[in-house]
């Protein structure tokens, strides 16, 4: 199961992130998780949002260079050692992680890990086979 992630090209300039946030807020889009990869000149803002298709349209219209891409959302219990287990599984199957970010749900004591692989489809079937819970876009929206 692969969900939609929104990536935005950002110059390292003050006010750009605020502008993204403003556009999303004005359209009633909620940000579930985000991360920024930065270089000296530019950054890539990656986000999981409540309505990725709308977010794409809104940001594009506002003049941002934006892209929709796929990522895995894996739900695990918020317990010590589980991330290690996951990484060992990747290692054993030759899965190369491009990047990852995560958030923890206080209520359910669960964590959601977002993992991007060179080969998302292969990773998805391996995790699925091992009984991991892979969230869908629909499930992400409901959280």
């Amino acid at each position, binding site marked *: 199961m692969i969900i939609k992630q929104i990536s935005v090209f950002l110059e390292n300039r003050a006010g750009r992130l605020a502008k993204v946030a403003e556009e999303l807020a004005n359209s009633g889009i909620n940000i579930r998780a985000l991360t920024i990869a930065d270089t000296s000149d530019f950054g890539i803002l990656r986000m999981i949002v409540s309505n990725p298709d709308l977010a794409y349209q809104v940001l*594009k219209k506002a003049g941002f260079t934006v892209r929709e891409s796929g990522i895995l959302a894996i739900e695990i219990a918020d317990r010590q050692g589980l991330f290690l287990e996951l990484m060992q599984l990747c290692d054993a199957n030759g899965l190369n992680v491009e990047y990852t970010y995560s958030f923890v749900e206080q209520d359910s004591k669960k964590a959601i890990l977002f993992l991007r692989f060179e080969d998302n489809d292969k990773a998805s079937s391996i995790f699925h086979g091992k009984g991991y819970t892979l969230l869908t876009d629909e499930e992400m929206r409901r959280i």
Partner: protein
Amino acid sequence: MSRPELTVLQSRNLRALVERVYARVPFYRRKFEEAGIQPSAITDIRDIIKLPFTTKDEMRGVYPYGLLASDMTDIVEIHTSSGTTGKPVVDAYTQKDIDIWSETMGRTLSMAGATAEDMVHNAYGYGLFTGGLGVHYGARRIGATVIPISGGNTRRQLTVMQDFGSTILACTPSYSLYMAEVAREEKIDFSRIKLRAGTFGAEPWSDQMRLEIEEKLHLKAYDIYGLTEIIGPGVSAECECQNRLHVFEDHFFPEIINPATGEPVADGEAGELVITTITKEGTPVIRYRTRDITFLDRSGCPCGRTAVRMNRLLGRTDDMLIIRGVNVFPSQIEEVLLRHDGIEPHYELHVERKDNLDSLEVHVEVSETLFSDEIKTIEKTERAIEKELREALLIHALVKLVEPKSIARSEGKAKRIIDKRKL
């Protein structure tokens, strides 16, 4: 007209011009005297190299009427350069000058295929700027219908184009691309607009940019050339071959010199374009140093016209950047950038001096096709462009991708160089 006939005509007109300005314009009389030249020394067009050059600064120095060679009662119209870099240069036209201008602009439009059947969408600014009225007179001369929409208000331009059925577009090349951008935002399909040709000038552009304009606007794009100091647009223009601009040399005599020494260079060799207005009455100019870099091609053109051709501008002597001792023209950089898919022709060159060493940064807008979710892919693109720039320029330039629309758009001449060096 055969070459020998043309030479006779040019020689006669040059002699008359020299006598006229010597008698009527103190500015030229003084220059001739300082150079030790009598009008009688000029008998043939080839004698032109004996005459002193005229520079833009000198023309500004005699602002407003110091170049006037006609009585003010005979002047029917005045135009000026923008004056953004100092006092403007004044161009005063007699009726005969307007007739010549209409003729050369008429030729310019005809060479792009325009006829009396056409609707000329004139998006050059009307006013003191020569572009608007120059195209206007040319369109009138060939009997076409002119839409004097002038510059700006791009959405209205697009509406008028669709509603009135414009067939020929006249504006700056960068403005035409801006129109294409706005059209895309407004979901207007250029293939459904009747435009079939465009005459683009007033700023240097490249063959790559031509391809881009032709593709986005669905028309044939022709390069035209002119300058206020000479007459406005209508000094030279491309024919249907779209391969170098025929100079209207029965009115504007071209030479190419080495900008450093002032000596003539051989045909085919690049240098500074120098023009003499051999038929102009109001404000004639002798050996004007245009600061535009090009070369002349006297080989026959397949179109059959015999007028000498100048190459599209390679740059400006004053736009030419000297970076670490190497001459760099923005047009070279533009060519490299436009070879890449997903690169928009919106760029800025930033030059700085750090620790006594010049550095060149090329800022390019990132488009959706170029943007990857992964940093390594973006950086790979940057490095690939840098490598090509190094091959084209022989110096290292740092490529930096910037957000779309972060580079200022212009509805007139694009400003692309930001030189922060304090020399």
